[in-house]
């Protein structure tokens, strides 16, 4: 209980928000808009899972938005060329892995600071994509949207897939040695190295996995619309990093829980629709989101200060 206090308090805040909505604006819970809203969050959730691993490892990756855009365009072009969806999916995941591994290699192999490395790759992928696409949309063949299912079926499939992936990753972080290595390396890389853990391999793995998940998330986004826009993924990095921070992942590594990240993402994502339902001007969304993030950071700061005493 005490150990997961941080995660539980985010979940409580989310529950409180939902309760207020249930009382004041029950229309918020009518199935179709709710389902659409949740579906829209699934790609972010998948990327946030990977981002959480990288942040727990005491690194950061701000290039995920650009990776996402590149993967989405690759997936779109392959789908438009008539390749079957499984092939498109693998190609997108593979492209993400390559981009993630490149970040990981620069950070872990060469020992460069991740914020600078991923800033550089962020700009590089973004501009490369802009040059390549010239702002053009990719029209997808029929049968791509919602995997060729009904909208309801597609949405259900996406939400289920994201939740299964989240549960799997949360389980792995707890039950696989690799998960524990990530926590150990993020807490104290030198201590981990002295215990025979390879911090480089762990870091490289976290970045590569984030890339793969970003590739997967790109496809999950592509199938939600009839065409791929080159702006897919813009601002995604801020959104998922914010979800991690609000969800209790320590920015200086070593601490964090994927269920907390889930709660954090939902809390941030529900602010806008909640405002609409409560008839507050939606302009307040960003300000309130910022406030929530600030609150989370201050809470973590106070916590570490108290622990240090």
């Amino acid at each position, binding site marked *: 209980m005490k150990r997961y206090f941080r995660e539980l308090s985010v979940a409580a805040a989310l529950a409180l928000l939902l309760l207020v909505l249930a009382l004041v604006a029950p229309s918020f819970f009518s199935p179709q808009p709710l389902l659409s809203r949740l579906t829209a969050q699934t790609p972010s959730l998948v990327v946030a899972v990977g981002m959480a691993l990288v942040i727990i490892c005491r690194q950061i990756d701000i290039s995920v938005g650009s990776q996402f855009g590149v993967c989405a365009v690759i997936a779109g072009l392959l789908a438009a060329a008539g390749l079957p969806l499984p092939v498109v999916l693998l190609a997108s995941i593979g492209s993400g892995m390559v981009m993630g591994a490149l970040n990981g290699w620069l950070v872990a192999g060469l020992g460069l600071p991740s914020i600078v490395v991923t800033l550089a790759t962020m700009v590089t992928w973004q501009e490369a994509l802009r040059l390549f696409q010239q702002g053009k949309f990719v029209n997808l063949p029929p049968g791509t949207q919602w995997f060729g299912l009904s909208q309801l079926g597609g949405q259900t499939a996406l939400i289920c897939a994201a939740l299964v992936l989240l549960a799997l990753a949360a389980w792995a972080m*707890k*039950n*696989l*040695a*690799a998960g*524990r*290595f990530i*926590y*150990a390396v993020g*807490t*104290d890389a*030198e*201590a*981990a*190295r*002295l*215990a*025979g*853990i*390879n911090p480089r391999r762990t870091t490289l793995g976290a970045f590569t996995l984030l890339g793969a998940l970003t590739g997967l998330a790109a496809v999950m986004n592509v199938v939600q619309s009839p065409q791929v826009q080159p702006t897919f993924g813009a601002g995604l990095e801020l959104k998922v990093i914010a979800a991690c921070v609000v969800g209790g992942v320590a920015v200086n590594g*070593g*601490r964090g829980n994927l269920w907390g990240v889930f709660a954090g993402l939902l809390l941030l994502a529900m602010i806008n629709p909640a405002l609409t339902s409560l008839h507050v001007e939606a302009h307040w969304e960003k300000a309130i989101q910022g406030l929530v993030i600030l609150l989370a950071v201050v809470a973590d700061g106070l916590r570490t200060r108290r622990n240090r005493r």
Partner: protein
Amino acid sequence: MSAPLLQLTSVTKSFGAVRALKGVSFDLRAGEVHALLGENGAGKSTLIKVITGAHQPDGGSIDIKGERVAHLTPASAHKLGIACIYQQPALFPDLTVAENIGLRLEKTRSFARVDWSARRTRAAELLQRIGAEISPEAEVCSLSMPEQQLVEIACALGAGARIVIMDEPTASLTQKEQHLLFAVVRELRASGVGVIYISHRLEEIFALADRVTVLRDGESLGTNAAGELNETQLIQLMVGREVSHIYPPAESAPGEVVLSLKNLGSTAGGVRSVTLDVRAGEVVGLAGLVGAGRTELARVLFGITPADFGEILLGGKRVSISSPSEAIAHGIAYVPEDRRRHGVILEMPVAHNITMAVHPALFPGGWLRFGAETELAQKFIHDLSIKTYGPDAPGSSLSGGNQQKISVARWLATKPKLLILDEPTQGVDVGAKSEIHRIIRALAKDGLAVLMISSDLPEILGMSDRIAVMRSGTLTAMLPGKSDAHEVMAAALGKEAA
């Protein structure tokens, strides 16, 4: 005679259960060089930190120029004219000499305009006063270590320091640089500054000091005029005679050679040509002063720092070790010195800490088996009598001694052939200390080869079957376990035993 510059009376200071200073009195007069001597861990650094205001004493009093100072902080110590020159100068490497001096000495008003020419002139003047040929325009990172020390001294002079503390200032200097430094120290003395001089080099003490105070185990053994003592007497004072603690007897007969080093060296690690054998069932104590290369040798053996030349033989076979995981695979275990930083991950539970180095063996395929983990942790909690409320307790909830036992347990779990312990009882209370000694002895009896680095001379003498002494990266003596403290200290100091 007027009041001394500095007068400490019965100063005490404890860190947790460890009493670092047990009522030390010390005084410094104007125009003298007062040497402070003692083994590693005798309390010198703590005393210095009390004088510079970095530590608050638990008891006793401090008078400066005859006036009682109630609460000394680093800032007020600076104002009172106390300056400390550390072995590693604390300068800003990317700024110039003049900028560094200016930062220390100029009144800091955030928006005052910097008077560059006055800053340069003052820097040049100060450097000239101590006879240093350093350009005020030079960037500090381009200076050698002694030059940086001279800059520090210039800062101290510029601040009008009356009390200058020098902590092993010659440790990294060449002969010629030392003479320059000595001249500066003598000049400081002539100008009425009181100098507290810490050094392990006895010849320097006799060349420079007017009076000598010896510390041992946090107590002062009195102050003498330097002329009243000879080297032998000084060493005798430093090491003491009685062993304050009963060590478990050696019971095992050494078996075959487990580790054999032939001219092992590492330029990066500062280890020069070490030849050494460690047998199964024996404890080899590795003695020496701080900086003698003992931890560096351990780091080379554990694959943290690469070896450049020489051979490492394990069980008679030549091996090369380039990473900790390779060392572990070869049956080497290393309990590092700084347990808080590298030995135990304090945020993680006891059980995770204990199994951290045995993942491949305990969890084949990378699947954690919590049952097996808890069982292993329980076993070590019982075997080493680790006091914790359970395997799930975070490492930070344990006392220092018990954290150290976890660090040891982690390595015993790897079933090593060679166990390297680096300062195994540093910062551990007396009870836990003898328990750790009992554990080490029991491990040796079970046939483990133990290499124990320690700066605690009684511990070296009480625990070792043989004692290897290092100085400046080389092995200077190989002594039997029942050696005299005097012999070990003499070898560590580079003196012939008298």
